[in-house]
């Protein structure tokens, strides 16, 4: 929230830090009043439906929603300095508990430090904001209200369409935006705000109320100040982002159709859009055909395209200039990945293989997943105990997840070959695991009717041997010490403390990204690609000082400012907007307990993960990132 005001001030009025000061007031009620009094239009950004101002009338608003893009250059400079000078260590912004919202905070902390997540989210938000601007133009031009909206809903054949309809049916449709889009934007704003607050001296805990509100608009289950399942929230969040992305893709498609017959004035931009959308169409059609479950074909496509856009893991060695050069070379618009980063990073494929024991016919069913549900072994027989001692902790997970069971007795399998019920073997394996692997420990069971928590210890390996099909087939099963092709490194754990699901507390433990994680920002070309034509466009149009172009005014200001920056800076601006600062603490572990965020030594962290019968805090969600060996 606060960041929006700050940006507004800086951008238009160039107000000195005094204003900022007032915005980061402490105390919830206080800051709220401050906000409302300071800036009347603020209400529009808070809580989606409250927004009564149509886009067309308020120039500022479109920018408010993507406020991150208008951060003052000199403030960025300043913060760069602080980073450089930051000897006292690290300041990590913290999040207020808004009343039973530790489930929210723990997930937000985790996502913030999830590799590449912020960066990707940033670009999604940027694209969304560009879209919003374009949408405005289209509206002015065609003067047919809600045409984009109509095409949007018309193209929506999936579940999200209902949400769109809801959003569109709302009171003058929260600036005509689908609620999921608002939620995604709010999420990004929240991270940007955290970044800002880390820049400042007084690190007051941030209140994620605007985001929470937007989230509740989309997912009413989070209404009320109930305790919620962090996992449910996580799934919800990822879904929202994915859907927003799809929305964006569709939007671009429909836009293409509308801009096709546009006036000469926009020819530059149209070209830009054309190339983009044609590629997007190709990608989308492909993925549509294959549908989301059989992701093989589309996955290949995505991979090739992403290879084109971002050369993977270019070593960073003061290489700013290098990257600039390569940027110039890659001036031509590149096909953009049309698969959401959520799908790319978080989704894996599981395979259910059923073999009839009579005819030995095999049926296979593939499913995409974004987390794996790990049952906790509560069977404490002696034999198993012995087994366990021999097993390393990765093996525990492999056995729990890569399973094989017999369908027998009353649960026989109806075999389509034998045309009868037969015994069958049903095995689960993983042809591909996602880069960011989420394991959910089955701590909450409904066995006794009520939700009960299983507190049994499960090891939390800092390094998890991969259990995808290739890795398992690679190594002989007899050797106890297994070396797999991939390994997974723990980057976050969400611990649950308490006896039941509805009474407890969540604390996130996450690892600060180290230096290597920053390279992706510098190697990123997503900004340049779209930035350059936009700059030209806005410059020329502002010269013409067309009536329409007043909507671009602020934008052109920004880009002009940026132009100077581009000389010094390369990569994308995501880093400055919402990225995690570089620090000498990279790689160390943070304990994120609502308002309190502190660095803990690895030893202390490991102690927390170790079995402790007195402690009811147990790991609940484990987050791993893949690294190839």
């Amino acid at each position, binding site marked *: 929230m606060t960041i929006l005001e700050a940006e507004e001030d800086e951008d238009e009025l160039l107000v000195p830090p005094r204003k900022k000061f007032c915005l980061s007031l402490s105390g919830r009620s206080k800051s709220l009043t401050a906000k409302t009094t300071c800036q009347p239009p603020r209400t529009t950004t808070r809580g989606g439906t409250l927004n009564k101002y149509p886009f067309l009338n308020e120039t500022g608003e479109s920018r408010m929603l993507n406020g991150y893009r208008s951060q003052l250059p000199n403030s960025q400079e300043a913060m760069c300095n602080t980073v450089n000078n930051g000897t006292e260590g690290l300041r990590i912004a913290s999040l207020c508990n808004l009343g039973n919202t530790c489930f929210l905070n723990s997930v937000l902390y985790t996502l913030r430090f999830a590799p590449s997540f912020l960066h990707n989210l940033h670009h999604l938000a940027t694209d969304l904001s560009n879209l919003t601007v374009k949408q405005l133009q289209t509206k002015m031009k065609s003067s047919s209200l809600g045409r984009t909206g109509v095409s949007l809903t018309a193209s929506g054949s999936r579940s999200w369409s209902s949400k769109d309809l809801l959003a569109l049916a709302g009171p003058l449709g929260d600036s005509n935006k689908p609620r999921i889009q608002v939620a995604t934007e709010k999420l990004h704003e929240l991270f940007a705000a955290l970044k800002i607050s880390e820049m400042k001296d007084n690190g007051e805990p941030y209140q994620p109320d605007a985001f929470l509100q937007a989230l509740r608009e989309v997912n009413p289950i989070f209404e009320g100040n109930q305790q919620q399942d962090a996992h449910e929230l996580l799934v919800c969040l990822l879904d929202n982002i994915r859907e927003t992305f799809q929305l964006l893709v569709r939007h671009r498609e429909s836009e293409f159709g509308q801009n096709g017959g546009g006036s000469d004035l926009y020819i530059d931009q149209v070209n830009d859009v054309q190339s983009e959308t044609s590629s997007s169409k190709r990608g989308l059609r492909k993925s549509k055909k294959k549908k989301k479950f059989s992701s093989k074909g589309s996955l290949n496509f995505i991979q090739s395209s992403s290879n084109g856009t971002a050369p993977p893991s270019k070593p960073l060695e003061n290489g700013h200039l290098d990257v600039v050069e390569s940027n110039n070379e890659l001036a031509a618009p590149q096909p953009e990945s049309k698969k959401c980063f959520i799908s790319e990073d978080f989704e894996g494929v599981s395979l259910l293989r059923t073999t009839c024991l009579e005819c030995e016919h095999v049926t296979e069913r593939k499913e995409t997943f974004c987390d794996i549900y790990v049952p906790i072994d509560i069977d404490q027989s002696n034999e198993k105990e012995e087994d366990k001692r021999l097993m390393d902790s990765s093996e525990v997970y492999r056995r729990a997840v890569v399973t094989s069971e017999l369908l*027998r007795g009353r649960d026989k399998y109806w075999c389509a070959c034998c045309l009868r019920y037969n*015994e069958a073997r049903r095995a689960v394996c993983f042809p591909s695991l996602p880069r960011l692997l989420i394991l959910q420990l089955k701590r909450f069971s409904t066995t006794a009717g009520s939700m009960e928590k299983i507190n049994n210890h499960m090891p939390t390996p800092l390094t998890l041997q991969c259990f995808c099909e290739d890795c398992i087939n690679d190594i002989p099963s007899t050797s106890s010490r297994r070396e797999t092709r991939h390994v997974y490194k723990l980057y976050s754990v969400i611990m649950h403390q308490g006896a039941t699901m509805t009474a407890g507390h969540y604390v996130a433990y996450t690892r600060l990204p180290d230096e290597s994680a920053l390279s992706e920002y510098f190697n990123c070309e997503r900004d340049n690609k779209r930035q350059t034509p936009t700059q030209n466009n806005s410059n020329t149009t502002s010269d013409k000082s067309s009536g329409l172009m007043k909507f671009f005014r602020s934008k052109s200001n920004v880009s002009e400012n940026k132009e100077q920056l581009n000389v010094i800076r390369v990569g994308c601006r995501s880093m400055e907007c919402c990225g995690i600062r570089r620090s000498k603490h990279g790689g160390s572990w943070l304990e994120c307990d609502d308002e309190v965020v502190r660095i803990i030594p690895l030893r202390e962290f490991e102690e927390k993960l170790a079995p402790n019968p007195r402690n009811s805090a147990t790991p609940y969600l484990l987050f791993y990132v893949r690294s190839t060996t």
Partner: protein
Amino acid sequence: MAAHKTGGQSARKKVQVSMVIRDEVERKHRAGVNSLQYDPVSHRLYSAGRDSIIRIWNCKNIKEPYIQSMEHHTDWVNDIVSCCGGKNLISASSDTTVKVWNAHKGFCMSTLRTHKDYVKALAYAKDREQVASAGLDRAIFLWDVNTLTALTASNNTVTTSSLTGNKDSIYSLAMNPSGTVIVSGSTEKVLRVWDPRSCAKLMKLRGHADNIKALVLNKDGTQCLSASSDGTIKLWSLGQQWCIQTFRVHTEGVWALLATDTFSHVISGGRDRKVIMTELRATEKCTVICEENAPILKMAMTPDQTSLWVATSESTINNWTITQKDWQCGDYCEDAMGNGGGLRTMGPRNSDPAQKIIGGAAVRHCHVLNDRRHVLTRDTEENVALYDVLKAVKVVDLGRVDFEQEVKKRNKTVYVPNWFNVDLKTGMLTIHLGQDENDCFSAWVSAKETNLADNDAVDQKVNYGNLLLQALLEHWWRPLHGDDENEGNVNDGNGPTHTRGGNPYFSVPGHTPVIFSEVGGRTLYRLLVRDAAGETEGVLLNETVPPWVVDIVVDKNLPKFIKIPFYLLPHSTSGVKSLKKDRLIANDFIQVRKVAEHVYDKVLGAGSDSGSVTGAGNTVSGGSPAGDRTNADSNTDNTSLAEEKVELLCNDQVLDPSMDLRTVRHFIWKSSADLTLHYRPIK
């Protein structure tokens, strides 16, 4: 302890009634053949079919080999053994029973019901006349054959010893002739060995990576051969408790084994459809005897060792020649020596079988037509046929026509609720009644429209499930009710043949098997329709027939009507003022013309305050006569009058007066919400 009698009706499990629609004599196997036994004395071949029938073939008259069928099982027969010098046959089936047969005369002597799941395997110790049975319930039972054959209706208990310890479903079993060793193979992937004399566990043998599907023991029980779904055959030394050798001659699971008495050769077959002979003392020496069209399930050697009968998952049983050269494994095999890949490329010794016992076609696909009475089927030979489930007969063979097109052609715009389930596991059309939530009595139809009654007869509503159950138990003797006689006279125009039961419209073929079984479980009793009149059968039926059937067939209670609630409103174009929205209830088979009549009589006829007449919950009158009760439709004139005066609409579509309400709901309303009909007067 095993009781030789019809299992008492379990109080917990629901009992279903099934019937098989088939020819009176089924001379050919309809589906795969699971097991074979060759009787060297009479040169008869016994084959255990997946069509639930064991057939006896005369191998000396291969032109007309069929001798007899042994029918009593109700599911796949999984294994058979011939014992007592060929006098008796013992069979194991997926109907969970083991049966003892008189092999010469071909009748079932007794049924053993100790198993709780499919019985998959049998083993026979010739010297001791002992048989073991094992199955998916993990249990192994040992039977003394002489005791089994001595069982009578009065002396019907037999003691058995059971071998325990198996942790998983048993798929294979073997015993040596002297009955000193018994070995079982299961999904546990280990071989378990017992001494059947003391029932003592001897050992476990590990090594296979998958289910073990076939086992052979040598004469003295010192060596064992095992075939597994992992594609290997293993030779074990029981004395040393280890695997002597592993044979990888098949590319897929190995399902059948046959070894010479001396354990010099093993013949194996399996999913890769190849029959391969391997010399045990020289692994490299193996011969592909033949390649079948389907996975191999069982093999039987003729006593002179010159040919092999091979049973597959298809219905034809082939005889393949084995030459002296094959036994000696001459130079042919030596080609394959040295490189393991040689075997894969090796062609089979025989390209065509020497003899064939031709099998029939199995029904593989079926489609229940909209009238819920006729079923279209397609078999393994692509022939399409039409069956009438109600009368338990095949109506017509349509030959090789397009199945989907035929379905489309024969489906009418009529909706009748489901009242039976179809099962094709035996390759014959099997109909289950009362299997699940599908109410067997849900289908009420007009006897006239379904051509059960003559056109000039009074229109009656009949219930399909009711009629079929009555027909299936037509000959069952039961206490005569007082009104039986009268009823028969009133309804039955065909004469007094149905005095004991049945229904007034039709009978089902007397050879139709009727099966009472627990839903999803064990078979309780099987008999033919015509046999129900017998005294023993009557007694067993009294024990077995479930109450829900007795209620219909004996007590002659009529099943309940199925009601449809609906709203009746004036159409917007009718000009009739909208009254308050009344919810009406009517039988689901009520025709639209009856509703029109109701509108004409009660709504329009009574003038403006008709709302009070058609108060909420009113039942539309007329059209309710049903079943055996006569209820003449007196107001026919009125109906035709009403039809001309009032038309009814649903979703703005004018309804055919002869359509019934459930059809309107299913094809026009298409919603789970209460049906809404609109009426408008015809000017």
